[in-house]
């Protein structure tokens, strides 16, 4: 029997959904989350790296560090979904789509998502 996971917390959910397109570094991730949420979700550094730390610990994402050396020698850490993380992200997406469809069916006039 497949064990069902609890839904991810909001910040983690946004991050795994943002990483579905491929690996990103912290600032790019923050921008992608803001873009996906129409600017309504803007994380601060503590929230972003706290959530990334938990996702790494849970094995949903992994670091792919040491990629891009900037002019000033600052190195950025990139993150990507693991196979488990990708599966969780797809499941979360599916759960949200079902939720929206069910709610939409019960709205007056049968509004469609």
């Amino acid at each position, binding site marked *: 029997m497949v064990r069902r996971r609890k839904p991810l917390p909001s910040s983690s959910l946004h991050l795994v959904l943002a990483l579905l397109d491929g690996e990103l570094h912290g600032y790019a991730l*923050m921008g992608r989350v803001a873009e996906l949420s129409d600017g309504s979700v803007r994380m*601060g*550094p*503590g929230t972003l790296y706290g959530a990334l730390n938990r996702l790494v610990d849970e094995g949903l994402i992994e670091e792919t560090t040491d990629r891009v050396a900037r002019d000033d020698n600052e190195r950025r850490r990139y993150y990507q979904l693991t196979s488990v993380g990708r599966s969780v992200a797809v499941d979360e997406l599916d759960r949200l789509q079902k939720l929206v469809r069910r709610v939409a069916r019960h709205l007056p006039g049968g509004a469609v998502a």
Partner: protein
Amino acid sequence: MTDRLAIRVYRRLLWLYPRPFRDEYGDDMALLLADQLRDEAAPRVWLRVALDLVLTVPAHRMEARMNRPRSSAVPLLFAVIALAGVIVILLAATTLGIVAIGASIALVSGGLAVAAARRSRPVGAPAAITAHWWQFLVGGAVAIGLLSVVTGITGELPDGGWAIAMAVLFASLLSLVAGVLLGLARLGGAGRPTPS
């Protein structure tokens, strides 16, 4: 405020976070702030950073505190006090008042040692042999206490009774020594990282 000064101020503010988190992500967080200051208006960025600090620092502090390995020093200290109570009983076995004081110290401190040892055990962690150190101490102390009470009440032991008493005393002392050694071994191993 120039960006360079802003980053220095932010690096100081990062000291509010627990050290492991700061060591792991401090540079990335400062780099992230530099990126934000480059692309957005500074007051807006600082407002977001202030809110972020207020919300995340207590959470990270609490998380770090909950994950901190617990010390075996407190239960061991209570166990040593309990042992001192037993020694008092042994040294003054004929004076009832002092025996009562020694017994009270031994019982209260032993109870506190047991409670502290139970509290210091990580939830769900497998119990190593060193985790049972307090049981050796309590067992030895109780046996010596009982022996003292029996010899104090009866005054003289029947033939063959001394041999049994000596055997019990020897076993009790062995148990006490084992308890102290296991407790020290556990205390020494408390700082080591646990395998994941």
